[in-house]
């Protein structure tokens, strides 16, 4: 009755070419775009001199991709994301004339990134546990403790506060730091100095 293949792609509700509502685009975005983040960040870091702009560039690219997916789901997500990134960088160079032209190192080399074979999902998944564990280990000790108590032991915020002997707003702060840092590390970006509490 229900085919395994079907379920393993998460319901396959966001089909290429179709017009989607926001929750469907959310699902599509998480499934197709977020896994590209590591490659995208690498690309941005490589092609944009001012490293502190990179997170904001990523945000802008995500908005462009997301909003265009609301109209139509692109059928080649990877190519679409990198084409969008490329256009955005070219556009920035043109508009912000303050940025010297050599800020963008090798835009034409971008085709390399697009022609790369799709990441082998199997390999990625196999490494994911290790990756997750490593991400967790890189949180500061208190932050990590709060996340472990909440995520793995299933304690509530109030219980975490009691267990750690700290007040609730501090727990809240640790959890926020932890979640934000985990999101960066899990999606592939891991600059030093980001993982502090």
């Amino acid at each position, binding site marked *: *009755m*229900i*085919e*395994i293949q*079907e*379920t*393993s792609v*998460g*319901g*396959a*509700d966001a089909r290429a070419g179709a017009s989607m509502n*926001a*929750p*469907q685009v*959310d699902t599509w*975005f*998480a499934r197709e775009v*977020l896994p590209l983040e590591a490659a995208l960040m690498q690309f941005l870091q490589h092609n944009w001199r001012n490293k502190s702009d990179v*997170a*904001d560039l*990523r*945000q802008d690219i*995500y*908005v462009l991709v*997301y909003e265009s997916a609301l109209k139509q789901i692109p059928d080649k997500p990877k190519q679409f994301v990198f084409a969008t990134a490329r256009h955005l960088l070219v556009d920035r160079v043109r508009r912000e004339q303050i940025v010297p032209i050599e800020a963008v190192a090798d835009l034409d080399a971008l085709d390399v990134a697009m022609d790369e074979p799709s990441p082998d*999902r*199997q*390999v*990625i*998944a*196999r490494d*994911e*546990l290790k990756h*997750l*564990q490593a991400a*967790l280990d890189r949180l500061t000790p208190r932050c990590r403790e709060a996340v472990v108590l*909440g*995520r*793995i*032991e*299933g*304690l*509530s*915020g*109030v219980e*975490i506060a009691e267990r750690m002997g700290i007040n*609730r707003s501090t*727990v*809240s702060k640790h*959890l*926020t*730091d*932890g*979640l*934000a840092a*985990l*999101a*960066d590390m*899990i*999606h592939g970006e891991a600059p030093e100095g980001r993982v502090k509490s």
Partner: protein
Amino acid sequence: MSGADPEKPIVESARDVDRQAASWLQRQNFWNWTTEDQAQFTFWLDQSTTHRIAYVRVSDAWNRTHRLTILRAPMIAREVERTGLRIWSIFSKAVAVLIVIVALGATAVIYLGAPHEDVVATAIGGHRLVALQDGSTVELGTGTVVRISQTNDARTVKLDRGEAYFQVKHDAARPFTVTAGDHQLTDLGTKFIVRRDPDRLDVSVMEGRVLFDTKQGSLRQVALLTTGDELVATEKSITRLKRSPQQLSDRLAWRRGVLVFKNTPLIDAVAEFNRYHSKKLVVLDSGAGRLTIGGTFETNNILAFTEVAQDVLGLRVVGRGDEIVLSR
């Protein structure tokens, strides 16, 4: 960011937005969540696409850390008492591992809102009870999205995907309807469950009556369903079956966090189980798929299920990246 250009709207840095999203997510998962919080959250979420994307991004990362709980299960396993819930299993080994590890925090319940329409969603493995002002309840199962709108003369729930159990306070002046694609159900005083899969709609009536109304192309069909009726609509056909009270109760087992199998082909049991996990079980050969399995399994405990496959059915269980492969 230079921020020197007065023409540009105020731009929040990506870092700020990511932190805001993380803050909302931890508030939803770890602290008391009020309707006021929900209203503020919805307002924040609708403020800009950057907010929404940041929330999707941090939720996705959070959902992935779910895998850590599986990894650590044997070490931190502890029995969690659940009042009113007894777990039966014909396999003692399964019982030993039937331990609740994933707490409610694991369920990144995503509340998303639009004007006059409350969007409520659960992640894979999620479970959420929504109480409406009129006393009706909508209970969401795994991977479910519903949109609820309430006006003075109508109550409407759109089931975008997944499964939901409805206990409706009947009010003829304010009909309660559930729509799922081209199909529509109107409550006539009742409790019923609706499950929407990509290619199939399944409705079971636990109590009372429901009016089923569908249009397939230009053809419109109407059926009155009563207690014990199960209706299955696919693109090709609509079938009505009669179910025993026990079968109906098994259909609702997910509300207690379990799945009940009785002589269920492995391939079907696996498909059911997979609805609750991002880590998927795969049955390699069709011979193995036809073996039958029985018992009550916690939806969040993949280990118990694979141990039964291994010890009782004699299958080989091999973790392969994102999948757990069962084969002879």
